[in-house]
């Protein structure tokens, strides 16, 4: 039966001032969830209910910083908004691939609200923040109640649609961009039904590191249960042979596992992985920097 009802959300709202406090609050609540920008968690609460308490991370000073990491890389706090990350001078200068991907996420209002951490913790197969973090081989700093702390490579983070390697109550505190990935350039090609505020139906990032052996990174989203890297295809691009692009496209198409849904058929999406990869390489070669300016 369908009923009309102006739903109301019924949950308690908690605002910790520190990470320790946030972790302790989690332990004391029934059906708790962390709240960052709320652009995923609130629509989901409205759709599915099931949340007893929201623990707001936005007022925790230690999560609200973008700073140099120990290794010369960059550390992005979990409360930093997508917009702030995308336009940050150090991000633009050293990790332009991340800027480019993030500037295509949602719209200005969404980017001003949403966080990069929330984007990946939500673990949507279409997350626009994921391809760049996969390409840059970001490292995630996680903390849990009682002082437990660990780091995890982004490559080990996504487990399935909406599923991550986070343990219950574990908090993603910082996203670390390694120094070795600085200077990578890339092209993020994204197919959607309209030009703004639409989840992608297929997205392909092709990035090339500034130096090193295995320079190429190919990351795909919206075409598998999680965002993923097409590593075999990367190696083919590294080889820089005349038919590298075609072969890389084929390998990337083989690496994905799309489904049929409202945004497109599986067959179309798979094929678009190849087409967008070609488009991305063209753009990279034409040495135009990718992405819409933020």
């Amino acid at each position, binding site marked *: *039966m*369908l009923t*009309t*009802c102006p739903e109301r959300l019924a949950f308690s709202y908690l605002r910790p001032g520190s990470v320790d406090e946030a972790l302790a609050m989690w332990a004391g609540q029934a059906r708790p969830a962390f709240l960052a920008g709320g652009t995923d968690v609130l629509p989901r609460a409205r759709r599915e209910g099931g949340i007893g308490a929201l623990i707001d991370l936005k007022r925790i000073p230690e999560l609200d910083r973008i700073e140099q990491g120990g290794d010369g890389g960059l550390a992005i706090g979990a409360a930093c908004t997508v917009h702030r990350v995308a336009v940050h001078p150090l991000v633009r200068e050293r990790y332009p691939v991340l800027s480019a991907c993030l500037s295509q996420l949602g719209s200005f209002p969404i980017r001003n609200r949403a966080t990069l951490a929330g984007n990946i913790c939500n673990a949507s197969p279409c997350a626009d923040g994921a391809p760049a973090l996969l390409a840059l081989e970001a490292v995630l700093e996680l903390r849990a109640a009682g002082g437990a702390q660990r780091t995890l490579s982004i490559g080990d983070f996504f487990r399935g649609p909406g599923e991550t390697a986070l343990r219950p109550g574990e908090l993603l505190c910082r996203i670390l961009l390694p120094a070795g990935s600085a200077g990578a350039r890339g092209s993020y090609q994204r197919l959607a*039904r309209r030009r703004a505020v639409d*989840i992608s139906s297929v997205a392909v990032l092709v990035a090339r590191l500034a130096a090193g052996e295995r320079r190429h990174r190919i990351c795909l989203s919206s075409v598998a249960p999680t965002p993923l890297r097409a590593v075999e295809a990367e190696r083919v691009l590294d080889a820089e042979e005349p038919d590298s692009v075609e072969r890389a496209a084929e390998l990337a198409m083989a690496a994905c596992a799309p489904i049929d849904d*409202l945004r497109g058929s599986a067959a*179309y999406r798979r094929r678009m992985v190849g087409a967008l990869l070609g488009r991305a390489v063209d753009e990279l070669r034409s040495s135009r920097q990718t992405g819409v300016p933020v």
Partner: protein
Amino acid sequence: MSGQGYDWVGQDVERVDAVDKVTGAARYTADLKFPRLLHAAVVRSSLPHARLLHVDLGPALSVPGVKAAVCGRDVPFHVGIYLKDQTVFACDRVRYVGDPVAAVAAESPEAAAEAASRIAIDYEPLEPVFDVERGLEPDAPRVHPELGRYECVPWITPEPGTNVCNHLKVRKGDFDAALKRCAHVIENRFAVPQVQHVPLEPHVSVARVDLAGRVEIHTSAQSPFTVRHLLCACFGFKHADVRVIVPHVGGGFGGKAGINLEPIATALALRCDGRPVRVAVDRSEEFYAVVVRQGLQASLTSGVDENGRVIAQKMRYVWDCGAYGGYGVNVVRAAGYTCGGAYAFDHVQGDSIGVYTNRPIGSAYRGFGMQEIHWALESQMDAVAREIGMDPVEFRLRNCLGPGKATVTGQVLDESAGDVATCIRKVACGIGLDVDRTDPSGGGPIRRGRGMACAVKAPAMPNDAASSVILKFCEDATLELSLSGVDIGQGLRTVAAQYAAQALKLPIESVRVHNLPDTHLSPYDWQTVASRQTWATGNAVLRAAEDCKRQLLETAASALGRPADALELDAGCVRDPDSGRSVPLDRLVMGYLFEDGHAVGGPVAACAHFVPEGLLFLDPETSQSKKPVAKWTFGAQGVEISVDTRTGEIRVDRVVACYDVGKVVHPSLIRGQTFGGIVQGLGTGLMEELVLDRTSGRIANATLADYKIPSSLDAPRMEAGFLETPQADGPLGARGVGEHTMIPTPAAIANALVDACGVRVHSMPLTAEKVLAALDAREAGREGGHRGS
């Protein structure tokens, strides 16, 4: 000197409601506060087609805070504008997922939702009909077995015993004989899916029935008087006991024409002891539960002679009217008598057939069927031109209507009907279809193309549809204008003020448009639909102004001791041109007081109406009629697109529009209407479609996350030009254009796609995936050694 500076019609005056809109002073139905308001929850069918065996309201009534619960057996009344095929709640059968079955009113939304969830419904599922092909089969389940018993206006012809809720036949000349003489015969089929209006403000209605039985409705609607009339017909109220008030409206696009949530709110309010009850739908329900635009399946056959003249044209338009045809039957009719679009076909066989299905209710939507039939017809005209090797622009010019030419109903157009040929030429030239072009993409993956399409539409309304206005002068000679046309964003208030100020030579700031229509206080207006308001209300304003002017001159005649016809209205006064003497308006508008103390005249006020003249019904067998509609508005659009042949994505780069509007009343409002229409047309052309889940019968994409309308970044560069062939019965020559602006866009894009890469897509919307499939099919055809035609 006189009149100078008061030619408001044609000027970009500031919108009279601009400050209200910008500051938030404008209040919409959901903004209104009502003391002791009750909240409603509507229980809707979860099955597309089922017998309704039993509805148990008992458990709902025991929920704390519930005031009333109601279902079909409590109010077994029919409602509908043309064909009364719907009841307030489903009575013995549900016909679509979303069909209202029951409703409750409670102290809080939570209590209402809780109570609604406890109502127990027994269904016996029936085989659903999901498409018109199935619906027309002899053994198809009947969506309305009672079709023969419904009340219906005489000009709608349902076919009892079938799923056909209306069928209009156009027979002109001898199609079969003419077809035999044709050098070329070309057939095609086209399709349009159901789409949604997506107004910013979803439907909401608040009803109160006071203890004396008087009914008061606040509602987001396009037509307060039609709401009142249909509500009275439904519940048996006296019209004068029902008051319908329409606050500011956040977009209608046809979805708020006729009557919608008001009967549900009223059924509850009747049981709530004088307390107001609010019924609102959320965004998801807005997509499937109220009304949508019909789907269309079209088959066209064109017979063309050696000179590129279409001499025989067959058109079969089969409409997916969804579960109820109350309003949609008239879309079927309008599509029938307009089946030939902007063209003069001599031998015509046209059929427009409305079919019931177990889908959401098809109803009025900006264009009233015209975008859908133009999708088919304008794609066909282009395809035929290419097939016979003629330039599509030239082909259109050879076949289009114009003065002295006859429409499919045999109406011979006169000079004042508008000039489609010039629209075609201007658009072709503006978009660059007139020049010889080589593809600038030079074989790369991005192809550019240009295409055009024409548009025509008449107001589809009862022949006696009326608009009326009241003008009243205040003591200080400011003017109050009251009307019941609804300003749904198109700018009606501003336009009405322009006509009044011009006719009475007033500063525009001296006119106040009191327009939150209230059936107790404001004058009658049939509906705000059919692109009729500027034309109909504009005429009524001019007539009322004429009456006010006569009153002013008569009073001034006494004051000045001169005959009234020797005097003239001037800026702020009435003057005697011979003597140069004058009386200021503020000494006339309440009557004139002489120095000795005696008075003449009285408060100046007037009420006037406009009803179109000379309309004639269609012949029931052939639909021939010399004047089936009040007016036609013609136009055309040209588009330029880029197609990425790797992905199938279409980008619309530029659109050029030209309409013959008779008179440009307000340049920026008409540009706004045109640009808005183009973007809305582009949305339906490229991305919009309600997707049915055939297992459950539900709409699978009933959210803004899944159903996309264009964003500002999707808007192309747009240019709009207008011709001003005066409409004989138009106010200062104006005719309607609001809907026309979205009619040709999808077909023009499809035609540009053919220009860009040689493939035609026959079904809207032109998604990237479909375009790529068409490109594939062409490749496959080539490799197979034959080319598809």
